[in-house]
């Protein structure tokens, strides 16, 4: 089991009220899974993604990631976990505009303490893997949206993360580019990557091998569980 959430709650203060964003969430993900979490906006799926991604800690409950209880880990420890265990793909790419594609991809390795030459070599490799081997020295504004998202995916994969987290990865893309990005996810998953995809688009969610719906802060029971066993 790569990831195990038990009875996770997340509350946010809002004025004098306390808003319960997540209510008693249980979730397990195994190595090699490809899970989509679907829900309308305001359902709590982004909060759940932040918790899975160790960008936030739960109000209560336990969260074990790769054998480690991270529900009460320190800020520095969470940063290290994000760096070594997780890879992030965001809706709006978040590439640094002043860095080339290769430098953007190499950035997580800087925080992992990898030497510069090695960083750039591995970044080039990762860019080739996402089909951008010809554009390693392009600046983000010289790339199309789909290409930028593929650079972001290369950046997410550069540290060989245990878990790839994608938050509406096709939300800012046209249909054709979106399909390419989804094809890339399929390919990564076939090569062994564990992927959690957060989306509100049924078409995108349908590409995943498992699907969980979230509504009003609660995860609904899994439908048509085709992949319950160990991967």
């Amino acid at each position, binding site marked *: 089991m790569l990831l195990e959430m038990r009875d996770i709650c997340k509350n946010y203060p809002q004025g004098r009220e306390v808003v319960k964003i997540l209510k008693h969430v249980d979730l397990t993900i195994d190595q090699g899974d490809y899970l989509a979490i679907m829900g309308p906006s305001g359902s709590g799926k982004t909060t759940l993604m*932040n918790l899975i991604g160790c*960008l936030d800690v739960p109000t209560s409950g336990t969260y074990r990631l790769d054998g480690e209880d991270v529900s009460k880990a320190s800020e520095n420890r969470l940063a290290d976990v994000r760096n070594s265990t997780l890879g992030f793909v965001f809706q709006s790419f978040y590439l640094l505009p002043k860095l080339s594609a290769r430098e953007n991809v190499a950035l997580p390795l800087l925080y992992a303490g990898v030497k510069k030459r090695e960083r750039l070599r591995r970044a080039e490799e990762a860019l080739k893997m996402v089909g951008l081997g010809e554009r390693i020295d392009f600046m983000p504004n010289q790339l199309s949206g789909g290409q930028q998202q593929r650079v972001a995916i290369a950046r997410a994969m550069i540290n060989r993360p245990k878990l790839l987290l994608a938050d509406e990865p096709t939300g800012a893309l046209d249909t054709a580019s979106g399909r390419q990005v989804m094809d890339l996810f399929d390919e990564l998953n076939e090569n062994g990557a564990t992927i959690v995809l957060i989306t509100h688009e049924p078409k995108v969610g349908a590409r995943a091998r498992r699907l969980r719906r979230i509504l009003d802060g609660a995860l609904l029971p899994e439908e048509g569980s085709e992949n319950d066993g160990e991967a």
Partner: protein
Amino acid sequence: MFENISLAFQGIWGHKLRSFLTMLGIIIGIASIITIVSTIKGTNDQIKESLIGSGTNAVTVQLSQSGSAYDMSWQGPPAGVTPVSEETLAELAGLDNVVAASLFSVRQVYDAAVCYGSASWSGYLYGVDENYFAAAGYRRTAGRGFLPEDFAAFRKVAILDGTAASVLFGSASPVGEVLEVRGEPFTVVGVVDRAAAGQFAIETYRDYEMYYGDSSNGRVFIPLGDWPIVYRFDEPQGVILKAASTDDMTRIGQQAEDLLTASQISADAAQDGFAYQSDDLMEQAAKIQELSNATNNQLLWIAGISLLVGGIGVMNIMLVTVTERTREIGLKKAIGARKRRILWQFLTEAAALTSIGGILGVAAGVGLSRFIASAMGTPSAVSYPAIAVAVLFSMLIGVIFGMIPAVKAANLNPIDALRRE
């Protein structure tokens, strides 16, 4: 670290105009400080140089009464002050960093005259020992100096300084001529002159006496052993000490004062206000330097205020930068940058910004002080320690004023930071 620095320079280069305007406060502040310091140093160096050149580090210690030099020409030797003994002189010569020690007696004479001639002279007559000319910084320009035999045989020989020579003999050579002092004939054997003339600050009558009072008509020197021939045996003498370096002069002067006052002056004479007083050129230099430093220190404070304003400008721009780059910070945190790394990134950027400002300010300051020096004819000297301090200090300003923006950046919550558009 290196990564941060190169990123910082990229960031600064990426906003050339903004960075330059931000630096401007630092540039102006550092430039004015460098200008002021260069002017101070230039003036002080000039003062020191002209004094070192003139005095060859000579400290003169003379008997004084109630603060002004005691002139035996009027009142004769005072009671209760004994002549300096060989032992005391040896003790003075043994003080730290004393190169030479010399005894001398001095009186004004009014009736010296050239034998077989018409010229007469009034001025200062010095009885000197064999070390005097070296210690006081005289150079021989004609004839010879005093020989050991002159002292041993009490030969009646005299040496003139340039002024006395020209008053008595005009342009003719005085060597071999005979001079009559208080009825005694002295054969002139040589002419000496001060190694160089300095500029002195004349603030008291005593200063005037020390540097100009006895030199209007020049000086005549005779061997100290001959002094009783023209005056008396028991006259207290003055001492000239040559210091190894200019910086030792004040201390040597004070030690000699204490030693001589303690050994030569009786309790009664001390009661009457007798004491040995030193007047060294460093003290003179310090007086002048103090004067110019006092005004310049106020200028330095004002320049410091412009640095403060510059620092606040840097803080302001760094806060704007942090806000502008919120998403960058959020992303970096999301992919694993620790708090400390973000903190360092922004501190480095602020420090790089102000350091560049400091370096540009130093360049501008050096240029400006050169320009002022040549335009107004005032001295200026580049002080390398001041430059190093200025650059380090401007870096420190960046760290201090960059701290609040950097802490703000480091404390950003990655979720909020990423959500902000």
